[in-house]
């Protein structure tokens, strides 16, 4: 089974690649629509700016193949900005649309706490999670972001609190997303990626 790691022109792909390969997965970097369309599973990593991310997908003509892959049930895992891109839109780039897999809007973290939210934090489980299966409730994960999807989003399975409750893990049928960086979250992060691979 081959996993397509979407390469939209920025972002730290080698670490995601290394983490997945370390778990025995076969990966390829997807820069072409056909690679997304033909993938058994898709990982959408991302760092940086929401606007640059969705523009990068559009320029490479990857937006529609991603939406088609979702419609046909291909498992998709969004990481950090990749999770945010699965939502309708973001305050970070108000004129851009996201992939629209989820209807909610991504917003800036509040100003009463330090932002970016950088460092290791714990999660609050909202409901049963496939990605967090077997992980201790008090496990820490590495976050680095200034924007987030609301904790009240329908697909939220685990929230995190940083001035506001935000979606830390989302799951809905074939869609998965983590606001933290599993590839940077030590052994616990590796377990999340393993759970994703085992769900395929």
């Amino acid at each position, binding site marked *: 089974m081959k996993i397509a790691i979407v390469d939209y022109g920025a972002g730290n792909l080698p670490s995601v690649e290394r983490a997945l390969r370390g778990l025995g997965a076969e990966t390829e970097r997807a820069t072409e629509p056909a690679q997304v369309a033909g993938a058994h599973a898709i990982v959408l990593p991302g760092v940086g700016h929401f606007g640059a991310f969705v523009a990068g997908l559009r320029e490479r003509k990857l937006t529609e193949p991603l939406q088609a892959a979702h419609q046909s049930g291909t498992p998709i895992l969004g990481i950090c900005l990749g999770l945010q891109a699965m939502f309708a839109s973001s305050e970070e780039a108000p004129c851009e649309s996201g992939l629209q897999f989820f209807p909610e809007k991504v917003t800036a973290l509040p100003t009463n706490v330090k932002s970016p939210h*950088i460092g290791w*934090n714990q999660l609050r489980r909202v409901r049963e999670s496939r990605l967090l299966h077997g992980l201790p409730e008090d496990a820490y994960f590495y976050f680095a972001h200034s924007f987030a999807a609301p904790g009240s989003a329908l697909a939220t399975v685990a929230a995190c609190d*940083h001035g506001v409750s935000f979606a830390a893990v989302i799951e809905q049928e074939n869609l998965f997303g983590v606001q933290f960086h599993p590839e940077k979250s030590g052994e616990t992060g590796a377990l999340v990626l393993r759970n994703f691979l085992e769900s395929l």
Partner: protein
Amino acid sequence: MPLARRIIPCLDVDAGRVVKGIEFAGLRDMGDPAELGARYNREGADELVVLDISASFQRRATFLDTIRRVAEQLNIPLTAGGGIRTMEEGRAVLLAGADKVTVNTAAVQRPELISELSQQFGAQAVVLSLDVKRANGSWEAYVRGGRQATGRDAADWAAEAVERGAGEILLTSIDRDGTRSGFDCEATAKIASTVPVPVIASGGASTFEDFLAVFTNGCADAALAASIFHLETHSIAALKKFLAERGVPVRQSR
């Protein structure tokens, strides 16, 4: 669910080796960066910082190779920098496998460097390295490895850098660096209360109590140290256990 306070070992590298500056005696070799990085990753470090202390033009390729070799060993975040002058040099550091890049001297000379890096890679990828020395009840920013005064108030410069898009401050006290007399908690608290981004305290770490003090009195979000970890004076696990027992939230490996 508080954000854990981070413990960050720092590798100062010169020509592909981890070194430690010894007063009047030059540099002492402390080992291979990839091997040390792997050890800290295994021992529960929350992040790793790699700084090019040679920072000369000719050695840039060697440093990028060092970043690649270290990044391959890690499943924790990596911050790298030292002598970064341009957007392209910053990009090269990130593409080599660092998650964040530090800027210092060049950003003081041309603050737009921070804006450019932040717009391209996001605030979470841009760390202002701020070297400070106490002066008349306040702190002054220094550049060129702490050798040159800027005439700028450290808190003012930190605020401008954050305004321009720096997502974190790596604050080094020149007064304390290498002295083993503890972190400068006053300077750290001053900067931490000025800027709305995380502050990493650096310079002077010697005992477990020093770390406790910088997290409590200094309001630091993270604490960085080099030689006390390299020399295995302290294990990261023992330090975290000490902090946890005193109510500081830390991520403990199991």
